[in-house]
């Protein structure tokens, strides 16, 4: 599933043109689009534009009210101010309910969206006029709780987006104040339910999956800091976040291959693609000596249990995925693909072990790890390009090229081991690239021979 959400609308619009030209039937177009969890554009385009503009107008009106409230009009008695805003909130929401009763769902969603902005503003106004300084994230939390059910009842995307945004802001502020945002997990589960059952949205699904990972890492910080109260982010939390990300990517890859619905396959593809991107960024970050110095600093690790958990989660999920994949298909291509992924996972596992259990943080050790990471980045870049050519994936092709070019740029400005060391590293990288090209040529020729 290489066609992502951004291109689906274009494909649907192209398919409509093919139908209009008589190249394919409407039924065929629908069948093709169903493969990509898309459908032929329906309805009036001007109605869609009207809806978007009206929703944005509601958003701006809401912002205007927030700014007015922030101005803190002292001339109006505070009871009147409060009652005024509560009436506007209730009135706007009831207009939404009325529109729903009158079978005008789009208008209803817009009214409810505006009502939700007013609802949040009212919460803030009451806090403002009574000088409430006690734990202000609670206001954001109640705002989100009052918006989320509306998103579920109306299946409105903008209301769901607003709820997700509020829950993320609440999460950041709550964790920033050293509180564990317990219920964030359930909001993210609700996001997954919404995106899979109510209204397909890659954005909501991805944000929910990312949020669950974030919550798990924060949970580890809470566990570390439970003795003294508050959250305690440490080296282990960062390691755990990479392990969680690896497991998520593996689940994404599994969904892409095995999920029953096209929608889920599509979601899986997005998770895998972004997971690979995040992995590459992580590898590139560790091509610098400073990153390794920080990671190998033995003072950063006091809780081996979390490191062991991370290793089990990261390496374990890879072994499980590799086993499943090999049972399904065990040709040369699969073995090479799994080999490169396995190399990255093994490198990660050994690095975590070295960092957490008796790390050697001497300059020599740091340099060895840095050089090895640079070579790993070259291997990943080559593997992505080869994979892209076989699978005709433009995303992988450009990712591979980008990794290699970024690496060349980084090493040109940040030499490892002075000029001679830098030159040797460039030579080794060049050698790996040439060897890969020759291996690929031979491999391709053999495959062609077999096919012939």
């Amino acid at each position, binding site marked *: 599933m290489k066609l992502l959400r951004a291109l689906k609308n274009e494909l649907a619009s192209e398919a409509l043109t093919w139908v209009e030209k008589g190249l394919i039937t409407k039924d065929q177009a629908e069948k093709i689009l169903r493969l990509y969890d898309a459908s032929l554009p329906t309805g009036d385009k001007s109605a869609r534009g009207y809806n978007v503009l009206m929703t944005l107008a509601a958003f701006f009106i809401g912002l205007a009210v927030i700014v007015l*409230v*922030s*101005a*803190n*009009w*002292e001339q109006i008695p505070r009871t009147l101010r*409060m009652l005024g805003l*509560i009436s506007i*909130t*209730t009135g706007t*929401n*009831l207009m*939404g*309910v009325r529109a*729903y*009763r009158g*079978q005008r769902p789009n208008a209803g969603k817009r009214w*409810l969206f505006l*009502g939700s902005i007013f*609802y949040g503003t*009212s*919460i*803030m106004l*009451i*806090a*403002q*006029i*009574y*000088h*409430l*300084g*006690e*734990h*202000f994230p609670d*206001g*954001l939390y*109640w705002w989100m*709780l*009052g918006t989320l*059910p*509306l998103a579920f*009842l*109306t299946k409105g995307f903008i209301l769901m987006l607003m709820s997700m945004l509020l829950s993320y802001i609440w999460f950041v502020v709550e964790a920033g104040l*050293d*509180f564990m945002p317990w219920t964030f997990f359930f909001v993210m589960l609700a996001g997954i339910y919404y995106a899979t059952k109510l209204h397909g949205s890659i954005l909501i699904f991805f944000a929910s999956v990312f949020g669950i990972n974030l919550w798990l890492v924060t949970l580890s910080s809470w566990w570390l800091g439970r*003795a*003294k*109260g*508050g959250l305690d982010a440490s080296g282990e939390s960062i390691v755990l976040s990479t392990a969680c990300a690896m497991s998520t990517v593996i689940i994404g890859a599994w969904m892409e291959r095995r999920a029953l619905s096209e929608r889920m396959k599509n979601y899986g593809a997005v998770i895998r693609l972004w997971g690979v991107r995040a992995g590459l960024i992580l590898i590139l970050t560790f091509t610098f000596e400073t990153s390794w110095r920080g990671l190998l600093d033995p003072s950063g690790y006091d809780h081996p249990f979390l490191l062991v958990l991370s290793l089990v989660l990261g390496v374990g999920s890879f072994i499980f995925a590799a086993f499943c994949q090999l049972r399904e298909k065990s040709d040369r291509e699969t073995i090479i693909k799994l080999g490169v992924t396995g190399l990255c996972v093994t490198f990660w596992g050994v690095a975590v072990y070295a960092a957490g259990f008796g790390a050697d943080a001497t300059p020599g050790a740091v340099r060895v790890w840095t050089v090895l990471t640079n070579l790993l980045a070259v291997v990943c870049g080559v593997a992505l390009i080869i994979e892209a050519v076989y699978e005709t994936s433009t995303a992988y092709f450009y990712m591979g090229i980008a990794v290699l070019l970024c690496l060349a740029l980084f090493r040109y400005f940040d030499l490892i081991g002075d000029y001679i060391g830098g030159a040797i590293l460039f030579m080794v990288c060049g050698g790996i690239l040439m060897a890969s090209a020759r291996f690929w040529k031979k491999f391709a020729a053999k495959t062609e021979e077999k096919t012939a």
Partner: protein
Amino acid sequence: MNSSKVVRGLVAVVVFQLLVLSGEYLTSVAPLWFGEPAILKIRPVDPRSLFRGNYVALNYDLEEVGNEERISELKPLKTQDILYVSLKKKDGYHQAGSLSKTKPNRGLFIRGRVQSVGPSSINLKYGIEAYFAPKDRARDIEKRIRKSRSANRVPTSSAASGSEASESLLPYARVRLLSSGKAALEDLQWGLEDF
């Protein structure tokens, strides 16, 4: 879900929102309606909240409480733990008295949450640390506080004369306290005469 169920659900959410707003309002005004008055000494600064507009952040003298001995008695202490500080009126305003983990049986006291525990003091927050005001007024308050602070650092004879005397009055917070120790900020005042 059919249309009438959706409409019923939407009405329920609207009612829920109303209940949240009413609950917030009632818990805000309860200390103001039923609470005991107290006056606390403040030390303000002036930030802006992204979600709540402009406000003067108030730091109280009460924020740093306890001593080495009392802290070791109260241990183990975690951040966000609740502590009660009894209040004693001295020099015209309320000052920190004893510190306890349980609610005192009598007397005036305020409920605070532990922010940090140092070797010789505990930092507490009471939920009355923000005084909201329009941007210009917030700035004026801040200016006046700074002026009164510097005026009170120089000898009294040279600072307190004519209009300067009123400007050198120190800021205090008028608060109301429920029997649970929950505090609500009523207003700011300059000097202690009108209390």
